[in-house]
């Protein structure tokens, strides 16, 4: 058996995809990117191609609101709903390594986030100003990396707490926007700022600004993603299903 198949289980992946994209959950996953693209098209026809407008919408709407929201839905939905209804027990009873389950679910969550958040961000950038100042590529790359980190963090939260969605949203909305604005130091611990640091590197100078340096951002991004995945796998090894409060 190759190393790749040890960490990736196609059956678990298929089940996770169906949990994420089945029924009404898919509705919100499709609606959000569609909204972004519609707004981009409307703004383009209203005001023509403009780099500062594009940058404003891509950072303010796409990266600050849509990417975390999709990340929360994909990350917690990948495992949270199974923990919630107790069907995770049947999965854990199978001879599949816990770390394999986590890595597979993480890969699926990343796939869904990239497909539903990062790709639309890139396309919105193209619609808004046709990659002027490399904005579309910059924000696309930033959104991919943010999706990676968000998926890992929210998957971890999904294993740790039953209130993962709320905790995730509190982090994504309160910490990154409200506290990040009041206490500048808090921005160092913001996934959004790490992603912006990469966007700053990719885009033309002066087009995007971030409050975190690129090396710090990359190191933190990688550390958080790996640490969250490792802890999630570890937590799953000794998981007890608590009753509803």
């Amino acid at each position, binding site marked *: 058996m190759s190393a790749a198949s040890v960490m990736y289980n196609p059956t678990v992946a298929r089940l996770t995809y169906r949990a994420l994209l089945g029924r*009404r*959950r898919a509705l*919100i996953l499709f*609606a*959000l990117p569609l*909204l972004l693209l519609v*707004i981009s098209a*409307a*703004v383009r026809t*209203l*005001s023509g191609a*403009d780099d*500062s*407008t594009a940058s*404003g*919408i891509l950072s*303010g*709407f796409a990266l*600050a*609101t*849509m990417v975390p*929201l999709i990340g*929360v*839905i994909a990350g*917690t*939905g990948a495992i*949270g*709903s199974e923990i*919630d209804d107790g069907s995770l027990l049947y999965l854990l009873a199978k001879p599949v390594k816990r770390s394999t389950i986590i890595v597979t679910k993480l890969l699926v969550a990343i796939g869904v986030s990239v497909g539903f958040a990062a790709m639309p961000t890139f396309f919105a950038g193209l619609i808004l100003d046709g990659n002027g100042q490399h904005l579309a590529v910059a924000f696309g790359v930033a959104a991919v990396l943010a999706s990676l980190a968000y998926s890992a963090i929210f998957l971890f939260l999904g294993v740790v707490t039953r*209130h*993962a*969605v*709320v*905790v995730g*949203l*509190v982090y994504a*909305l*309160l910490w990154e*926007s*409200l506290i990040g604005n009041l206490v500048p130091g808090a921005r160092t611990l913001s996934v959004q700022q790490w992603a912006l640091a990469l966007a700053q590197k990719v885009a033309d100078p002066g087009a995007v600004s971030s409050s975190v340096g690129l090396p710090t951002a990359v190191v933190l991004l990688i550390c958080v993603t790996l640490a969250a995945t490792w802890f999630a796998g570890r937590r799953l090894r000794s998981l007890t299903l608590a009753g*509803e*409060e």
Partner: protein
Amino acid sequence: MPREAFTADAAPAAGVTPDASRIHDIGYRHYGGVRLARGYVRRSLYIQSLRGAYGLGRSAKSKILPMILFAVMCLPASIIVAVTVYTHLSKLPLEYTRYAIDLQTVIGLFTAAQAPQAVSRDLRFKTVPLYFCRPMERIDYVIAKYGAMASALFILTGVPLVILYVGALLAKLDLATQTAGFGKGLLAAALLSLLFGGIGLVIAALTPRRGFGVAAVIAVLILSYATVSSVQAVAYGQGHTGAISWLGLFSPITLIDGVQSWWLGATSSFVSGYGPPNAAVGVLYLLVVLGLIAGSFALLMRRYRKVGLG
């Protein structure tokens, strides 16, 4: 010998008596109290739901989040009061009506976290049919849940205003001005609570899954604002200032902002304060808000017409 045979033998011997069956009094104590009716059920459910929104009567874990959000909501008000008192300002640095608009993320999170808590669990554990076994009607359930959610939100938005008002009076600011501003703030907070509570409950009542309900409510409340405000900023940048007030009709918090800037004389938080330009647009804002409140009540009523079955 089987029991049936014995009774079958005994019955013909006794002849056909019209009331052979009766309920035997086997000595249990009778209920002699007052038979409480629908009103009591409604009130109990209301109080239980309202306490539940703040985690009271539930586990310690469920108290954490609502209490943190409540504290986050009150903290800025306390800071503003402290600053006003110690620096001897002649007026509060913030309008009463502006407070909820500035902290809308917290209100949105509270709605998203607690609206599914109020209705989704009843659906998921199929307790709704048990409620309707009691002498309560569909409308009682909806009124109790909607009322509790709106009251919880009104406490969340109203208490900071009370802190501001008391602080303003302690700082010896003008009584009449402050009372008027406080009253307007409370009125706007009541409208906001009804609107947010209604939207939150309607979305939450659609799904028995709590996590999904939370995400859906937050998507509607926060994302619609993000959309509206970014498009408003673009419209302002392009000089289409007339469009700004019309765009405000498309998200809950900008609706409240529009209503209070036209009706209550508040400063609009739209870009450069482009609120509703005239009374007609202002009335339209108010009508849309009232329509949404009535609409969410009607949708909830419709939702519970056939419930517990799917």
